[in-house]
């Protein structure tokens, strides 16, 4: 167990800055997710923590001690790779025991710890199989068992679920989270799947172009993103420009083309400032409720199962609206929508 800190980590590959002054703190036992689009530097950052890539600048600290000069094999991190990286010439139990053999534990102790790890990931019967004789989900569990059996200070995951089908992914997601909480191990998890990030994490660090643009709890980054890119990346959102009409203790009123909307003013907004609001499709309600209601016309409807996704046009502005329940509104229909009680102010291009 340990506290992990990255300070101004920078890594360039030629012209590309894969990690650009990345600073993150992960508390003891915390589950932090690095979330971002492909190529934003998530894997690079993770590999820097593991010591598999040397940063050009910056420091990696474990419990306050700089470790970036330590070679990978002495970092005491354990990584679960996207490809699982199981050794093809070793059985399941040899794979799991590899890290323990490298630490020169006694054969008895290795057998015992491997047995425990196998039980933890529910693979007891498969210990003598080779990786190629396992399903993708089983391979994934072996990779997890191999990582946790060494009792690392920091557990690292690089998109460990991305090669599995959606159903299994969801189940293993829950199992991973339960396991991490049971072990209480500090964890950094990399994914480009926002649902995964929200479901698993204590906090989410959103990365773009090598930079961490925002860190917060899943609720914060989803409900009240500070950066426009965060709002966009974490699912469908509506942007609405407006001018700040009033500011009072942490809240403000923004005058938009559709009417007044209240917003969180945590970023120190000024009177008269032009801002962009972001709110989720499920925050817009169809019908007239308390708040700002406007009329609009349905342009497009797609049934998604749990909700119906509408594209609604009102006063020259199109909004995405999600409605739960069975009501079906046809394109062309005139409806009344109520804007959310509170929206987020987002910055940046």
């Amino acid at each position, binding site marked *: 167990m340990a506290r992990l800190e990255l300070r101004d980590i920078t890594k360039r590959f030629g012209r590309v800055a894969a990690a650009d002054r990345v600073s993150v703190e992960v508390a003891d036992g915390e589950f932090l997710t690095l979330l971002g689009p492909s190529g934003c530097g998530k894997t690079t950052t993770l*590999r820097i923590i*593991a*010591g*598999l890539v040397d940063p050009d600048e910056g420091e990696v600290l474990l419990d306050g001690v700089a470790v970036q000069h330590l*070679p*990978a*094999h*002495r*970092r005491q*991190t*354990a*990584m679960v*790779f*996207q*490809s699982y*990286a*199981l*050794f*093809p*010439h070793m059985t399941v139990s040899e794979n799991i025991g*590899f*890290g323990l*053999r*490298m*630490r020169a534990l006694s054969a008895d102790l290795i057998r015992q710890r491997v047995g425990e790890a196998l039980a933890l990931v529910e693979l007891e019967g498969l210990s003598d199989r080779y990786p190629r004789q396992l399903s993708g989900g089983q391979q994934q569990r072996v990779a997890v068992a*191999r990582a946790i059996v*060494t009792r690392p200070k920091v557990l690292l995951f690089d998109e460990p679920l991305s090669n599995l089908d959606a159903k299994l992914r969801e189940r293993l997601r829950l199992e991973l989270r339960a396991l991490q909480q049971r072990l209480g191990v500090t964890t950094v998890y990399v994914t480009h799947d926002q649902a995964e990030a929200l479901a698993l994490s204590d906090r989410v660090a959103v990365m773009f172009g090598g930079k961490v643009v925002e860190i917060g709890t899943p609720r914060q980054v989803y409900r009240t993103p500070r950066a426009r890119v965060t709002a966009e990346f974490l699912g469908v959102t509506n942007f609405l420009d407006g001018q700040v009409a009033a500011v009072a203790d942490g809240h403000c009123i923004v005058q938009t083309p559709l009417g007044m909307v209240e917003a969180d003013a945590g970023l120190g907004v000024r009177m008269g400032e032009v801002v962009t609001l972001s709110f989720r499709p499920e925050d817009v309600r169809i019908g007239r409720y308390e708040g700002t209601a406007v009329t609009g016309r349905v342009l497009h409807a797609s049934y998604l199962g749990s909700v119906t996704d509408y594209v609604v046009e009102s006063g020259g502005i199109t909004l995405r609206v999600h409605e739960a329940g069975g009501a079906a509104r046809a394109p062309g229909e005139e409806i009344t929508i109520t804007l959310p009680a509170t929206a987020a102010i987002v910055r940046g291009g």
Partner: protein
Amino acid sequence: MNRSWIMRGAPGRWMLALGFFTVASVVLIIPLIVGVLWSLVDPDAGWFPPAIVPPSLSLANWRAMLAVPEIGQAFAMSFLIAPIVTALCAALALPTGYALGRRQLRARRTIELLVLAPIILPGIVLATGLGSMFIRLGLSHTVAGVVLVQTVVLLPFMIRIVAATFEGVPQDLIDAARNLGASPWPLARDVLIPLVRPGLFAGGLFTFIGSLEEFVLTFIVGMPYVQTLPVLLWAYLGGRSSIFTYAAVVTMVLLVPTIILMFVAERTLKQEYLAAGFGKV
């Protein structure tokens, strides 16, 4: 739909099998049969066109050949040199193959070219060059000289195969091993070498057989004291009058162990490994 499947699938396969069989019989089976027949030709009757098979068979050639010590000595020489050359090539190819396959070397292209030069150069050019060099170095007429010269020509193949195998090892596996606490030596011992073992085997097999069959350089450097089976073969075929019958016996002596070796190797190695190793050469 159904028809096109039949047209494309089944006859395609049959054609392939037929083609393979034809090639195999032209390059392998027929010469083998002819070789066996030649070694069994009755020296009193001979074998002259237009006879398709010799008029009478006997073991006279075998008896005559096995009576002279030459063939036994050549056999021993061949099977002394081949393992040494193989071991030497393996020892040299392992680090070189690693460097070429896994390291981001700046001079990689140049090194590759140098390593591959013996493959690219015409054999006879290489042979005369190396031969005269070895003579000047005082290495001619010695087993050590033959071992060295064979290593020089066979090493590039070995390096090719081993480098390709090293290149095929996924970086993630190496990273995973390091991440789990493997320092460089255990990493090599427990992960890298086991993973390239199939390539090493395949390369070793090539080298071993290559050494058994090598003639030009062995002849130039070893002559007349180091006589391997191919050199002996030449003695029977190269003169004014080719003694086909004796040559055929030598060929069998050379061929049979080679074929046995192939079979043993094929059984020991997994077929997929062989395919992977050979496919990349």
